């Protein structure tokens, strides 16, 4: 692989068809298609290697890779295919774990539904595939500015270098400086993002498989509610080949207001009596953090393009959080494909933007995000993050407690527990209505 670090002294005549800023999944997927279709493509990545600046929970839904090229998942740098979908609720020292296993998600003859991944590994692989198709990936270069001519974006500035292209594609992630430079987004509002933090904890593959009831190559994905001290957010745990990704996501706005350190809360989660045994004996090998957009469909910028400029992936706000599943990497890849199709199909730079919006609809990205927009309303509900797991644990405690005394009526006990958690049946009814209206 040829990765040029410096020395791209190009004149305006030697321009590329497309310059992509950022070699994450969106940028590399876009480069892959463009290069395959014969376009000259330069991908500029500020990290030393693709993925070096990226952090995920995380998992990848496989359909996106298949959309990029059939059979690609077979050679992709993936960790484990997810066969267990788990939801955990914590309340003090107590824990409830729901474990959903559905063999039809992973039937012979078709790609498994999703894989756990590590971005340092995956992104480098995908960028390598784009290079195989003929894209040039230049790492260790930070793009500083866009070049504008007569209202059109015509290139980028990186340090001393100027590079020109018919189209510049912003694939530079959630803190998209490119989209800001293009005037398409304002400063990020704190209430629209969450901060994710995680440790990668090394453990032997066999230990992981024993602890999570997995066979070789199989993995578990777990979301955890009730581990954020009431702050909007939750925890996650993904099993990788030889490690576990354990982390928490918080609304920073609320952590600041409540004056609670996100680092401290996460360290508490690690030591929880129902989490600790899963990672015991392991060794933390990395500590990462990243912002994630929480605004869903309504958070997508009003305009995703200008003449000579498109936004893809996190830069365009393409993330879906339903509370039980989180999607971003698949949407990044899909949006990269849509952008590539638009550039290929457009006659003239002015046509690429509107065509990109068409492609985003055709590839089902915008309709999918719109369909799940209502989840944002439900997830706004403050009592989901502490009172619900507390109540659930209280109910389970009630059900499983045997003392020799005459048990009370379960219905009455549940109503009592709802009240003792400062909740009312009415609140559940209202949330139910809200949910039905939203979804």
């Amino acid at each position: 692989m040829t990765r040029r670090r410096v020395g791209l002294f190009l004149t305006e005549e030697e321009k590329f068809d497309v310059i992509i800023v950022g070699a994450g999944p969106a940028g590399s997927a876009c480069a892959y298609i463009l290069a395959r279709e014969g376009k000259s493509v330069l991908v500029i990545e500020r990290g030393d290697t693709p993925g070096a600046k990226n952090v995920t929970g995380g998992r990848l839904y496989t359909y996106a890779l298949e959309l990029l090229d059939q059979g690609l998942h077979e050679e992709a740098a993936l960790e484990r295919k997810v066969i267990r979908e788990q939801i955990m609720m914590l309340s003090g020292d107590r824990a409830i774990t729901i474990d959903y296993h559905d063999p039809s998600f992973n039937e012979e003859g078709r790609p498994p539904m999703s894989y756990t991944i590590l971005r340092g590994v995956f992104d480098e692989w995908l960028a390598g595939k784009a290079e195989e198709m003929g894209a040039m990936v230049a790492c260790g270069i930070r793009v500083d500015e866009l070049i504008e001519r007569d209202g059109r974006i015509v290139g980028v500035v990186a340090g001393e270098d100027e590079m020109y292209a018919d189209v510049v594609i912003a694939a530079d992630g959630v803190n998209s400086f490119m989209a800001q430079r293009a005037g398409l987004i304002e400063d990020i509002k704190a209430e629209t993002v969450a901060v994710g933090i995680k440790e990668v904890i090394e453990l032997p593959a066999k230990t992981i498989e024993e602890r999570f009831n997995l066979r070789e190559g199989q993995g578990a994905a777990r979301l955890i509610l009730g581990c954020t001290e009431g702050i909007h957010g939750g925890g996650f745990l993904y099993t990788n080949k030889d490690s576990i990704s354990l982390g928490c996501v918080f609304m920073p706005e609320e952590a600041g207001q409540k004056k609670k350190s996100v680092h401290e809360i996460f360290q508490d989660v690690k030591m929880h009596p129902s989490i600790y045994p899963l990672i015991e004996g392991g060794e933390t090998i990395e500590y990462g953090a990243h912002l994630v957009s929480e605004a869903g469909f309504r958070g997508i910028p009003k305009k995703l393009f200008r003449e000579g400029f498109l936004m893809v992936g996190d830069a365009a706000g393409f993330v879906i959080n339903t509370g039980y599943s989180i999607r971003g990497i698949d949407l990044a890849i899909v949006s990269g494909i849509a952008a590539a199709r638009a550039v290929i199909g457009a006659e003239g730079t002015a046509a690429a933007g509107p065509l990109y919006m068409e492609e985003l609809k055709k590839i089902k990205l915008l309709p999918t995000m719109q369909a799940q927009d209502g989840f944002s309303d439900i997830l706004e509900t403050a009592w989901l993050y502490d009172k619900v797991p507390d109540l659930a644990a209280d109910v389970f405690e009630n059900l499983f407690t045997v003392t020799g005394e005459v048990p009370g009526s379960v219905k009455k006990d549940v109503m009592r527990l709802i009240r003792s958690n400062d909740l009312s049946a009415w609140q559940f009814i209202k949330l139910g209505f809200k949910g039905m209206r939203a979804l």
Partner: protein
Amino acid sequence: MAVYQVGFQGDESFMSIDRMSAPELLGLNRFNVDEEEPHIIIDKEICRRCAEKPCLYVCPAVLYKLDKNGEMSFDYAGCLECGTCRVMCKNKGIIKWAYPRGTFGVSFRWG
């Protein structure tokens, strides 16, 4: 508190999980610090007047701290480049927030 408790499981010695401080965690990462050009700069005078100081709580690397005199101190060297401080700093005490220059900053091996 010890970072690692070296214990024994059967015959193999193994490292165990424990609470870790932010500096201990950051010590595991690979950083190439840009000594010439800090990518984040704060104005301590503005920070002094900021009542909320959310940065003390939201930075995953805990790089914003109050020193003995109650003055804000910040070290960009262990920055994970998440951008949380940037979106949370309402009183604009952060007068510069950019990504580190190419090749500098954190390099996640796993991510």
